[in-house]
């Protein structure tokens, strides 16, 4: 007995070529649509990543906060008080924590997605799902962690009586978007490269450490202006998307006296340009990823 309705329904569906490399625009569009269709699975993968990470540990989620809080304490005392960087920066603890939150978000996105394909090799070799979901799940997990950290940051500001209820808050969304776009773009490319060259995961450790010190997180932008005299180097430093986002986030969260703090001109414009360039990079990254993903199953 053959189900005629099923046959008829099947006959109506178009024959789709499986995983063939397609033209840039149509291919990207199709893959985006596939990922969008799988958003439920994406949600479950994010939950799995978060749940599995601290399963069987007594403190669980608290551990996600231990690292940034420890970093905060170290930077606050060693850099801020002992080395005197806090001089001239009001509410230094909030200043550092704001920058650290931005940096942690970025580094978790990049580090998490880089290892995501290799980490899910069992799945990738056996089940076909759009492979983009694995790096994207890491992005999602990093965002959840960021949300918790951010909530604590806000509680902090309340306790210290410096809750950021001011016009600077408009910088919040653009800054986060810039981090997301660049983190996802870099994460996508590196996750695919890591399959072929496992050195990548060691390289990013170094790269992320450099980035931590190459953005005004534990020191202020005015110190950079005072010490970095080479013009092009300063331009590179300032237009580093992470620097822009950190500055934007500080603008939004950290209450300060605007006359004493130096920011690069047109911060909002710079953020906007960075975002647009980032979007283009993200599309490019997706193309690279979809080119490389064809051989994932046999390389893993």
């Amino acid at each position, binding site marked *: 007995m053959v189900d005629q309705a099923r046959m008829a329904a099947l006959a109506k569906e178009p024959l*789709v070529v499986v*995983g063939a490399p397609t033209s840039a625009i149509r291919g990207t569009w199709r893959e985006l649509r596939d990922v969008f269709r799988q958003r439920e699975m994406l949600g479950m993968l994010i939950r799995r990543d978060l*749940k*599995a990470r601290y399963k069987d540990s007594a403190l669980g989620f608290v551990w996600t906060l231990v690292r940034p809080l420890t970093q905060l304490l170290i930077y606050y005392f060693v850099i801020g008080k002992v080395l005197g960087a806090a001089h001239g920066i009001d509410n230094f603890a909030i200043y550092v924590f704001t920058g650290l939150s931005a940096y942690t978000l970025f580094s978790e996105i990049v580090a998490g997605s880089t290892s995501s394909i290799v980490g899910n090799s069992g*799945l990738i070799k056996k*089940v*076909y799902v759009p492979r983009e979901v694995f790096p994207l799940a890491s992005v999602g997990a990093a965002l959840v962690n960021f949300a918790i950290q951010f909530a604590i940051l806000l509680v902090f500001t309340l306790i210290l009586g410096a809750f950021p209820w001011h016009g600077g808050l408009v910088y919040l969304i653009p800054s986060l978007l810039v981090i997301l776009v660049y983190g996802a773009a870099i994460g996508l490319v590196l996750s695919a490269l890591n399959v072929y060259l496992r050195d990548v995961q060691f390289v990013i450790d170094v790269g992320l450490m450099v980035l931590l010190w190459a953005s005004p997180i534990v020191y202020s932008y005015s110190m950079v202006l005072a010490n970095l005299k080479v013009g092009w180097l300063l331009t590179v430093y300032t237009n580093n998307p992470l620097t822009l986002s950190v500055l934007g986030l500080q603008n939004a969260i950290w209450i300060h006296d605007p006359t004493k703090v130096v920011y690069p001109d047109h911060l909002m414009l710079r953020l906007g340009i960075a975002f647009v360039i980032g979007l283009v990079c993200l599309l490019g990254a997706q193309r690279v990823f979809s080119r490389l993903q064809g*051989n994932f199953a*046999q390389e893993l």
Partner: protein
Amino acid sequence: MAISTPVAPSTSGATAERPDVIVIDHVRKRFVVRKDNTIRERIVTLGRAGRKHRQDFWALDDVTVSIQAGTTVGLIGQNGSGKSTLLKAIGGIIQPTSGTVSRRGRLAALLELGAGFHPDLSGRENVFLNASLLGLSRKETEERFDDILAFSGIGDFIDTQVKFYSSGMYVRLAFAVAVHTDPDVLLVDEVLAVGDEAFQRKCLDRIRSFQEQGKTIIIVTHSLSQVQEMCDRVVLLNKGKVLHDGDAVQAVSKFRDVLEERRSGELSADVAVGRGTVLGATVTAEGKEHRAPIVPGDDLIVDMEFEHLDRVEDWEAAVQINNTAGQVVYGTTTGIMGIHLEPLRGRRKLRLRIADTNFGTGKYFINVSMMDSAGRHLHDLPECDSFEVPSFGDAVGTVYAKPSIEELG
């Protein structure tokens, strides 16, 4: 299965109305085997010298197959013949080097049960995760959750972390999830070999009900009897090429030839195993002509001729009778009969008498083997003769006995 009537899978329904669900068009897949693995070695062997260190291996070589909806297709072949690669290409897990695979409809792949299970999550969480990997939405999974749980027989352990499961429970849960997705095309890769017999039965039953619902199933297996039982079409792959595409019985016999070729190739390399041959064998019923139908109560006579070019001290003759599904229905050897054969040099004829047989309706094949004392096969002559048992109309199966019934009130 209460009654094991060998029912061929239904092929009824006009084929014209069956759309192609999978079209494999001149697919080739190359794997490059490199012998230089570190960067240092690669730099040393860069350029022309590097080619010597690469070896191309064509796992699939110009495979063209299209599969209509509602058929059950078996992929068979020896190890490394490209079966699993083809299945993965259909599933989109690997991309062919050239050629295209296209398909329509929803596809679920049972390539490895529980591939998506995370050991630290509970059974329940894994069911949802795995179902979504197989393309089920959360709502659909919730609706089917009770069925899945019942089918798996996991019971209260569903909220335990999966790492504490026994391997059987693991597989049962994974299979339960997989069969409760509602795919148009189901890819199955040797997963049926796991689990205990009762569970295997359950799986096969489920696959049969999939067949009834008109789903397309593509199955890779080494069990030839399973292939003949379930598939209405068999693709035999050998070294990446399609050797046969069509009828299951023919495919299986061709596959046996391939295996026999390989085995004799391996044997001849083994010098100690000499040069023995089974020259031929015929089967007749006592007092009847060759090829005459055989009925219950007949004595079967199997005349065999053996030859050994050197001299073999200890040897045994073995006879095996298979049904059309390739299942052994009868077998004996001179060894288990307790007969010691004289050393063989040159040719020798033997006659085996099987008294008072009661074979059921169907066709049977005779396989004759020559073995040494260690049980190694010196030579096999598969399906060298056959006989047929006519239908009696009152019973089925491989054994016939006269049934009758009386009322006990």
